[in-house]
């Protein structure tokens, strides 16, 4: 069952639990009953709202009818009208309340689903996207769905049902005046296609895109604020932001200008004075010709305005609904990104020997970063990877925690392809000190225990001591409970030691250190060496080495150039052989000589 064909099949099958494009309907199905309740309550409430208007109509009929006035009938009518108002109040309030509470639940579901989905997509997918735009999907786009959830089911349904009922009633009163009353509605509907011209749709899309650019440029602006400051002349340094803003404003005004005449026409057609004017002109003509009882004009004056509700609702909520629709589209796009496949039948690795077999990898189809890597990392050894920037070192080690899957060949851990190991199992075995040290906006203890949330305080402290950061932590305002980024900011070296403590605590049998020596101060360098010394044993360690000391301490050195291994062996052997590593060694030494020389030459102008 573990033949290669099986492997192909297993990786085809996405984990049932992961987000392999769950449709909106599937996300919304659990809430179906609430949606129905919201709609029903709203419809009942809105229909009851007709009662007082009908009461006025009935009052008119009674008062205008020849002969003595039936007092009891008048008071019954008034009571019925008041009762209708009360029902309307209770039911619409209940509907709105439930709708909005439902909305907050649905938004939570969406955001959780998005987070789950984003937590499983291949990391490579992120490098092509901007954080700001993605964050906008999770935050603002989900919020923009609000009218769909909180308003559409209730108000929109009511906006159609109530006029329909009114229309039927009005037809029974007088069909000619009913048709006349519909004139404003027809006028407004006739204008609707003008709102949906391709040009308008294009402007809408441009509008959304411009908004996204603003979000991204702001993130960039704030993150790069120190550069903005250092290079002064604010105007030009943050021009990306201002350009995005200007773009947005001009797209916005173009959009508004394109819409304004049509929108004004629609709004005028639907406005109460205009509708009343039409009804009165038609009504007076009919009354004058004797075709309509004067009392029958009243229902048209009172209910006729309500007939415009669906068009008004569409026109009014149209923008919101349209932007909600586009937001849903973007949410769907993110949910539809296929996750890094999980194995259907995970296999446990035997031991922790790591083997790369003819591994090739490309971020883009036309540019291979790794070109056929064969490499074995034996347990109990330290392997140093050395190479110029852009040689593929970082990519190589990132294959181990399966940030990416190789485009060709395979990475095996304990004899098992990484793609056949469950992610939980994999992360238990591989820990990682990243190139860019990142600390979470959380307490020091939580940061250290990131991979081991269940670890006790003693274990956290032990790891911190080993990483040489314990004393510094004790000097923080609230020790291990200090929230980083909020109560304090750590320097680069301190942050790095936290991340080393993190790796030490994780205590995984395979450790990947990526450019961990950058930003290092003497204490941090010591901490790294101590960590490596403590951890070696039967662990498999791979280090992207920047320092000769680290290279010299390694059991094996691998020199990487342009995505291929050009040299490998024991550091001393390689140095004796006089190849690439030796050249590197010499260039490094000359760098130091030059450094000293620079001082000794004393050529600076005084």
């Amino acid at each position, binding site marked *: 069952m573990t033949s290669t064909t099986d492997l192909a099949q297993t990786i085809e099958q996405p984990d049932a639990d992961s987000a392999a494009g769950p449709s909106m309907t599937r996300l919304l199905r659990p809430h179906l009953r609430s949606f129905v309740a919201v709609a029903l309550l709203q419809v009942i409430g809105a229909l009851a709202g007709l009662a007082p208007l009908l009461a006025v109509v009935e009052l008119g009929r009674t008062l205008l009818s020849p002969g003595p006035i039936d007092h009891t009938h008048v008071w019954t009518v008034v009571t019925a009208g008041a009762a209708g108002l009360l029902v309307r109040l209770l039911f619409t309030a209940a509907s709105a309340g439930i709708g909005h509470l439902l909305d907050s639940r649905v938004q939570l579901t969406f955001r959780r689903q998005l987070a789950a989905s984003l937590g499983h997509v291949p990391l490579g997918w992120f490098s092509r996207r901007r*954080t700001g735009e993605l964050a906008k999907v999770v935050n603002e786009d989900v919020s923009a769905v609000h009218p769909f959830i909180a308003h559409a089911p209730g108000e929109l349904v009511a906006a159609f049902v109530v006029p329909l009922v009114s229309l039927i009633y009005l037809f029974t009163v007088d069909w000619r005046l009913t048709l006349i009353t519909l004139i404003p509605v027809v006028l407004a509907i006739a204008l609707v296609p003008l709102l949906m011209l391709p040009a308008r749709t294009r402007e809408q899309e441009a509008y959304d895109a411009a908004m996204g650019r603003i979000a991204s440029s702001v993130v960039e602006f704030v993150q790069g604020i120190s550069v903005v400051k250092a290079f002064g002349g604010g105007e030009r340094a943050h021009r990306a*932001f201002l350009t995005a803003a200007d773009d947005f404003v001009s797209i916005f005004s173009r959009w508004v200008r394109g819409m304004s005449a049509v929108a004004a026409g629609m709004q005028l057609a639907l406005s109460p004075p205009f509708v009343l004017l039409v009804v009165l002109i038609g009504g007076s003509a009919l009354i004058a010709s004797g075709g309509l009882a004067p009392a029958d004009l009243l229902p048209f004056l009172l209910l006729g305005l309500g007939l415009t509700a669906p068009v008004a609702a569409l026109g009014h909520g149209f923008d919101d609904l349209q932007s909600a629709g586009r937001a849903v589209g973007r949410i769907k796009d993110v949910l539809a990104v296929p996750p890094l496949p999980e194995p259907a039948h995970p296999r446990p690795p035997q031991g922790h020997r790591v083997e790369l077999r003819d591994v090739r990898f490309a971020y883009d189809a036309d540019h291979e970063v790794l070109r056929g890597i064969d490499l074995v990392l034996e347990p109990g050894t330290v392997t140093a990877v050395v190479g110029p920037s852009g040689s593929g070192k970082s990519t190589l080690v990132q294959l181990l925690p399966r940030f990416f899957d190789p485009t060709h060949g395979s990475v095996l851990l304990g004899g098992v392809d990484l793609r056949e190991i469950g992610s939980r199992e994999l992360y238990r075995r591989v820990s990682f000190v990243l190139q860019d040290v990142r600390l979470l906006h959380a307490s020091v203890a939580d940061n250290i225990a990131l991979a081991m949330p269940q670890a006790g305080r003693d274990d956290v402290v032990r790891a911190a001591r080993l990483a040489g950061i314990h004393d510094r932590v004790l000097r923080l305002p609230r020790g291990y409970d200090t929230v980083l980024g909020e109560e304090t900011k750590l320097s680069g070296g301190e942050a790095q030691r936290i991340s080393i403590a993190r790796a030490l605590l994780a205590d995984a049998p395979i450790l990947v250190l990526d450019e961990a020596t950058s930003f290092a101060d003497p204490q941090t360098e010591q901490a790294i060496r101590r960590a490596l010394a403590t951890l070696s044993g039967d662990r498999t360690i791979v280090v992207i080495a920047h320092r000769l000391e680290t290279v010299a301490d390694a059991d094996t050195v691998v020199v990487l150039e342009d995505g291929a291994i050009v040299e490998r062996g024991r550091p001393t052997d390689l140095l004796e052989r006089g190849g690439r590593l030796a050249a590197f060694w010499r260039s490094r030494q000359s760098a130091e000589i030059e450094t000293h020389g620079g001082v000794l030459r004393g050529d600076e102008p005084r």
Partner: protein
Amino acid sequence: MIRMLLRVLGDEYAWAMRRTVILMTVTAVVEGLSYALLVPVLRALLGSTPADAVPWLVAFGAAVALYAVLRYISDLSGMRVGTTMLRGMYHRLGEHLARLPLGWYNAGRIGEVSVLAGRGLLQAMGVAAHLLAPFISALVTPLTIVAVMTAFNWRMGLAALLAAPVVAAIQARTARATAAADAERHERDQEAGGRVIEFLRDQPLLRAAGRTGERFQLLDDSLLDVQRASRRTVLATLPSAVGLTLTVQAIFTALLVLGAHLALGGNIGAAEILAILVLAARCADPLLSLSDIGGKLRGARSELARLEAVLRTEPLREPREPIQPAHHGLEFDAVTFRHGQRTVFDEMSLTVPEGQRLAVVGPSGAGKSTLLQLLARFYDVDAGAVRVGGVDVRAISTEGLMARIAIVFQDVYLFDGTIEENVRLGRPDADVAEVRAAATAARLDEVIERLPAGWETNVGEGGTLLSGGERQRVSIARALLKNAPIVMLDEVTSALDPMNEAAVHEGIEHLMAGRTVVMVAHRMRTVQRADRIAFLDGGRIVEEGSHADLLDHGGRYADFWNLSMAPAARE
């Protein structure tokens, strides 16, 4: 509300705004008054002489036409004011953000500012474009109608007028009741926004820690908080919305009862009472829409308040009469600087004569980077003075100060754009030859040759598409191009690739030649190249002198040196 809008915007928009408000009010009054014509029309139609309705109907038609024209003009004016203000606001915000002290920017700010610049501004400006007209119309039209009703029948009018104070009281109460819930909700939204960005940006870290399989607690907690806060907002707004509806409906019921009573008593004609009830129905709808519009207005208002808070944050003060520094020497004179509650510098003094190189050494967190930031006036000191060329940095214009300083940062941040654009940031008016020369001196040319798109290569957001070493070279080239007399190096060598380290040292050498240099270095070997070394600890300079002097002295620096030179201990 409008006053707040104008305060945030400044006076230049006041006139256009006021004109728009007046236009909208006039439109609403015209609408209300046009309904007055309904009464004679209905009196005629419902009475015995329907033909009398015609002249009144013509008058009503004319009033509707006037209303239509006014409404179109005022809507357009609202839109125009809205967009103009939006543009002005973006520029104002952008320029203000660039002038705020760096200390203002903490972890939560990215989320806050991005929400503000995105949804926030649009919502705030939407007041003029979309909300103002319905709001004014929903208030003014019913009031005008009530006045009309009073003119025809004072009892009915008075009864309707009863609604006014109650509606006003409810609006006021709603504002108060929801303010707290809204504020809390906004805070939660922002927290969640920050968490989402963290979650996205730290994916590699979280994955390596195996924390994306189950729900990531920190994010999920904040999402749950958002849900709870939004539920509380709903519950806080609901009573007011119900109260408003109840009031409007109660008044309508009262009018219905009163009308029936008056009609039955024969005090008033049936046609008249029916016309007034039709008018009353015309009052109810706009008033009911108030709770909806009110909610949106409150949302916009709190966005405006946040915008105002940001714009009110004091930027670094510009000197009124900037002084030109006479030379390029640097001086810290008894500088005390606090960051939050922590005292970073405590009466620290230090001088760097023009053309000298000073290396700053010390344990992590001693404030080495902060020292550079004070020189560049990213912050202002709490006591003492930082001087460049003998002049307090607060007396030099920001432009003037920045023109003198080139900084190479510890965290290299590149803007999303091409390599060329990022290098040119150093001096936008540099010619091609100068840009190429800077790149060659920083050994960036090698990187560019290797990249398929060369100078046009996009560096990605923050420069993430380049490796650390490549980013560093871009930033050195940028600093070289700037050709400033004072150079600050914040751990430049840290991310360098050893294979090419000699080459990059060459670039730094070019950068430092003939200039006043302050460098922060963790690698002790780099430090040796300085004329003088200052050892920083506990907010003060504890040792100062040349490398040889300090080693002889056998103090803190010597310990540091020995620690870093010690061979790797591997048991």
